[in-house]
């Protein structure tokens, strides 16, 4: 059964429903433009909504993201497609774009689901939870995470045994396995690319033992461990559930490193590591935290003060890149590095190691256009041809870029860049009129 193509039109298509895409959409919608956000995940809010707290103010990420996200999802001028993908965008004439968008079935009627989680309780299947970065399991019928938006269930069809338990449990009969992929043809006047970034995969550096040693985890996994809806209820080692008391951070994992093909600085890792260190010291007061760093890049408003604060709290900053990690029998880890200040090779033992992984481009952005050329820079981020005077402009007229699609950025910078993208879009649209 071939489903028919649904045609709709909007003023602007925002590709990506993270904090940058959402902010851009909100700015446009507040000025009266009709916006469609296409998000490939089940929830909008991007990576930010999964964070614990944010630097340098230490307010919880949820406190900032949830009001934003609910404002976005409630806005009458904003339409959101989750679990959807922009397959292709073509420019039609001088003004319009036509985008082919596919919406994957969620197997749940979004409007009817009340988020009661009864289906989740009923589902017998357990698989690793990608929203907790595989630290725990989740069901095949599940709500992605407690502050997801929309906060409704979804069925992970790949892992579903089609037993029907969820359907029987659902009080509103909102689960529907007859849903099929929907195809849309969307006509828009402008496009905002807010496809965000990818995290560096530490498997690329085998000498750090990620994947092999359970107590070597990524900063995003630690972010979850520190979040209010954390997988372990407290900070624990994944190897044996021990409460760690000597934690190390390996900065520049996959950043500033030509040997893995990424020479640029990821701009956020120093600060989020310092933030996590402060949070750990808050939740595990007896723990020692050491950051192995090259240069601390605390450059933004209030950042350097935040760094000084961490030093004051007793976080140890050791200058030197960790070269190798080896595991001891008890799960503790030996880090080998050169202590730059003494010039000596040193080894130190920690019971948990966090790899502060860097920012890589999400190359999905480069596949959006088939006929037009959305230029990329040499690292495959979206190129900014007039980076000084119009940073939100791209190589295609009418296509603008927001957030980390152009390169590493922290949240305030992403939000400002999203504001700029919305601004440029508005003036483009009003000039076109």
């Amino acid at each position: 059964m071939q489903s028919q193509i649904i045609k709709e039109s909007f003023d602007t298509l925002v590709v990506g429903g993270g904090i940058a895409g959402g902010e851009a959409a909100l700015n446009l919608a507040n000025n009266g433009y009709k916006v469609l956000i296409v998000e490939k995940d089940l929830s909008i809010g991007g990576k930010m909504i999964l964070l614990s707290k944010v630097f340098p103010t230490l307010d919880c990420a949820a406190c900032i993201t949830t009001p934003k996200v609910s404002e976005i999802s409630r806005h009458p001028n904003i339409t959101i497609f989750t679990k959807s993908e922009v397959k292709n965008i073509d420019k039609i004439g001088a003004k319009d774009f036509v985008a082919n968008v596919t919406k994957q079935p969620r197997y749940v009627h979004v409007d009817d689901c009340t988020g009661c989680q009864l289906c989740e309780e009923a589902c017998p299947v357990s698989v690793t939870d990608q929203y907790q970065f595989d630290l725990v399991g989740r069901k095949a019928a599940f709500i992605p995470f407690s502050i997801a938006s929309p906060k409704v269930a979804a069925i992970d069809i790949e892992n579903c045994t089609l037993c029907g338990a969820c359907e029987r449990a659902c009080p509103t009969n909102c689960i529907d396995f007859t849903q099929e992929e929907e195809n849309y043809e969307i006509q828009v006047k402008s496009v905002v690319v807010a496809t965000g970034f990818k995290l560096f995969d530490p498997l690329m550096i085998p000498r750090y033992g990620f994947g092999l040693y359970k107590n070597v985890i990524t900063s995003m996994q630690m972010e979850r461990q520190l979040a209010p809806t954390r997988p372990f209820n407290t900070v624990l080692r994944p190897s044996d559930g021990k409460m760690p008391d000597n934690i190390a951070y390996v900065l520049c994992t996959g950043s500033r490193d030509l040997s893995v093909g990424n020479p640029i600085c990821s701009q956020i890792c120093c600060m989020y590591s310092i933030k996590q260190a402060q949070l750990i010291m808050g939740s595990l007061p007896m723990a020692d935290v050491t950051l192995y760093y090259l240069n601390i890049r605390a450059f933004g408003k209030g950042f350097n003060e935040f760094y000084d604060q961490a030093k004051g709290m007793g976080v140890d900053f050791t200058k030197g890149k960790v070269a190798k990690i080896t595991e001891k029998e008890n799960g503790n880890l030996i880090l080998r590095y050169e202590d730059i200040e003494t010039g000596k090779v040193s080894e130190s033992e920690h019971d948990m190691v966090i790899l502060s992984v860097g920012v890589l481009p999400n190359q999905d952005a480069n596949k959006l256009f088939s006929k037009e050329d959305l230029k990329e820079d040499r690292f495959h981020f979206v190129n900014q041809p007039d980076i000084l005077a119009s940073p939100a402009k791209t190589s295609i007229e009418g296509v603008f870029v927001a957030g980390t699609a152009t390169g590493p950025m922290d949240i305030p910078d992403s939000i400002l860049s999203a504001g700029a993208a919305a601004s440029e879009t508005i003036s483009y649209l009003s000039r076109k009129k």
Partner: protein
Amino acid sequence: MEVEKGKTAKYLKEKRKVPASVLENLKEFTKIKKTILTALKESEMTIPELSKKLDMSTPDVTYYVMTLQKYGFIATGEIDDMDEYFNYKIKE
């Protein structure tokens, strides 16, 4: 085709085969869940203790205990004397 609400899984089951690995995974999880819960019914235990008793690796035990805690079967008890490992127990 009109399918009765609340019974649509059957419809999809006819159209799409459930991979063997998915069923295998369910079996595996149900088995582990049972072993862990049975063990904890006897007494509270830390993860290393459970691991010893069940002859399962500590990372696996950690993962499943945390998962079962998330699903509401297990609760966290007191921490041991060394302040290292929490005890886990069946949730009433």
